[in-house]
């Protein structure tokens, strides 16, 4: 349903004759968006060399996991959640606490329990923990809809951030947690950028696969029905609360996975990585790329990462303002999209 195979076939057919292609492409915004973004990515890759791809690839993959998982909630179920970063942070902190090495000097400032577990033992725990919290949060949030849901999801993000910041006996507050373990299988440690990239991309593939499996199943169809009319869906015998809770938890677990990977990648986390703003940027990615398509979320993540890299080449912009400048651009893009294309670049659902 979601992966538009006919369009791909069309494109392949059209690639053989340029004139027909031009005629087809005229006014086809989705195609142009795809071409432009992928072309942009390729140009950057060629220009900067493969080192560039390796260095930004991990960032892209983590954002893409988050975006795909959030799209399950925002695009397919119609719950505009701005609190996704909370689950991201939960996953990251769980992995950090479980794997961080206790014997480092910074612990003197404030001691927290550490376990020194291997990464692959901690990651499932992180995912499960994010899922458990999502069950509790979801039960409370299930009754809210539309703009009130936005408000309470803001609330969840802020509560989560404050817990990370202020529950010092567990998270070390603003000091952050250092020495988070890199993943290792046997004696082989995912130490280099390239190995880690491969790992993250593998997980991204897994997440995309699971998401694809979900949205093409009967469950996915019911989610879209819930998005359109909750009460009518209920009349046909679906217990809407269960479906909403289920997708919420699945999505949160994916975010927890992303968090775990992020913690292990940076080997140091502090609450500043999990502020509300990150969540809002994530919503930007999802809406920009396209609601209710998995491919759209990947595109959105590409744009997001490339924007930051592109900003570095603006001559009179100091390096520390790159993130802010990207935020300005994203904000303006969001306004323009809402004005002219409320489903995002390649979306299937108009807000």
């Amino acid at each position: 349903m979601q992966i538009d195979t006919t369009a791909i076939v069309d494109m392949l057919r059209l690639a053989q004759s340029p004139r027909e292609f031009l005629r087809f492409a005229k006014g086809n915004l989705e195609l142009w968006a795809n071409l432009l973004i992928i072309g942009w990515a390729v140009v950057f890759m060629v220009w900067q060399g493969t080192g560039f791809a390796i260095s930004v690839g991990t960032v892209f993959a983590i954002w893409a996991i988050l975006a795909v998982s959030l799209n399950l909630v925002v695009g397919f179920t119609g719950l505009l959640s701005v609190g996704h970063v909370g689950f991201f942070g939960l996953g990251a902190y769980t992995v950090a606490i479980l794997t961080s090495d206790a014997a480092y000097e910074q612990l003197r400032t404030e001691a927290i329990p550490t376990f020194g577990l291997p990464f692959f033992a901690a990651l499932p725990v992180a995912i499960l923990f994010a899922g458990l919290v999502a069950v509790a949060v979801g039960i409370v949030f299930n009754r809210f809809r539309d703009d009130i849901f936005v408000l309470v999801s803001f609330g969840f993000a802020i509560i989560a951030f404050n817990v990370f910041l202020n529950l010092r006996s567990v998270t070390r507050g603003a000091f952050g947690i250092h020495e988070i373990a890199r993943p290792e299988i046997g004696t082989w440690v995912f130490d280099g950028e390239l190995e880690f990239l491969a790992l993250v991309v593998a997980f991204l593939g897994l997440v995309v696969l699971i998401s694809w499996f979900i949205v093409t199943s009967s469950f996915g169809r019911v989610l879209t029905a819930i998005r359109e009319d909750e009460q009518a869906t209920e009349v046909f015998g679906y217990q809407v609360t269960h479906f909403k809770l289920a997708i919420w938890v699945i999505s949160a677990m994916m975010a927890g996975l992303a968090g775990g990977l992020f913690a292990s990648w940076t080997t140091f986390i502090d609450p500043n990585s999990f502020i509300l703003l990150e969540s809002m940027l994530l919503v930007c990615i999802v809406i920009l790329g396209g609601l209710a398509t998995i491919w759209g979320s990947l595109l959105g993540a590409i744009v997001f990462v490339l924007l930051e890299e592109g900003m570095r080449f603006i001559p009179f912009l100091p390096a520390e303002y790159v993130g802010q400048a990207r935020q300005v651009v994203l904000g303006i893009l969001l306004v323009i999209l809402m004005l002219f294309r409320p489903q995002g670049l390649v979306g299937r659902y108009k807000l």
Partner: protein
Amino acid sequence: MSTSRPDKIDLDEIFVLRTKEVSKRFGAVKAVDQLSISIFREWITCIVGPNGSGKSSLINLLSGILPLDEGVVVIDGVGLRVLKAHEAPGHGITRTFQEVRLFDQISVWDNIMVTLTERRFLPALFERTSPQHKEKTQSILQSVGMWEKKDAMAMDLSYGQRKLLEIGRAMAMDVSIYLFDEPFAGLFPQMLERVKSILKDMREQGNTIIFVSHNMDIVRELSDHLFVLDSGALLAVGEVDEVLSRPNVIDAYLGT
């Protein structure tokens, strides 16, 4: 019950649906007031009444959209004080809405498919579209004449098509009691005939149909049994022509 008295009538065999002193209040307004009605099995029953007489509220109560304030609903011999919307199909009830409520941004095909698939969320996750589903959807779409439109978005259909699709969606549920809230409102004559024939066919197949309408010609033509509501209470019951000629019914319609 092996030793039932032969002269005792089992109401549940005759009536598929009964309400006992059902009430619903909205603030100070009594939308449905101590209403007791019985619906005959395999008949087309019509509910008429002036605007605000509680017809839609009654339909909402029977389909579980609104919770009951008081009273009991007996469906197929099962008495219920609480009827939740998602449990209503389990009791054999489905409905359409007065203002057409399709799933706008999904295709016509998926609109029908939604009513066919697994209800529990965990099995639903692992259920893919099966050939039976496809066949059923195709037959439903063909019977309401929407097969050509199967890939269109529901929001792009015309009003009549939306109405038909909604009826088709209810038919796909394969239950025994259908509640239609104003299925004929706003349709042009050709469509009217189509909906009428659909309703008749459904009756032939042994379904019970309850519908609300303001169009007296259609009411006369279709219904086997008629309820007249006025301000949430029952004004008249009986055979159509007889009820519609009663003076108090005429008063209620003309007086308001």
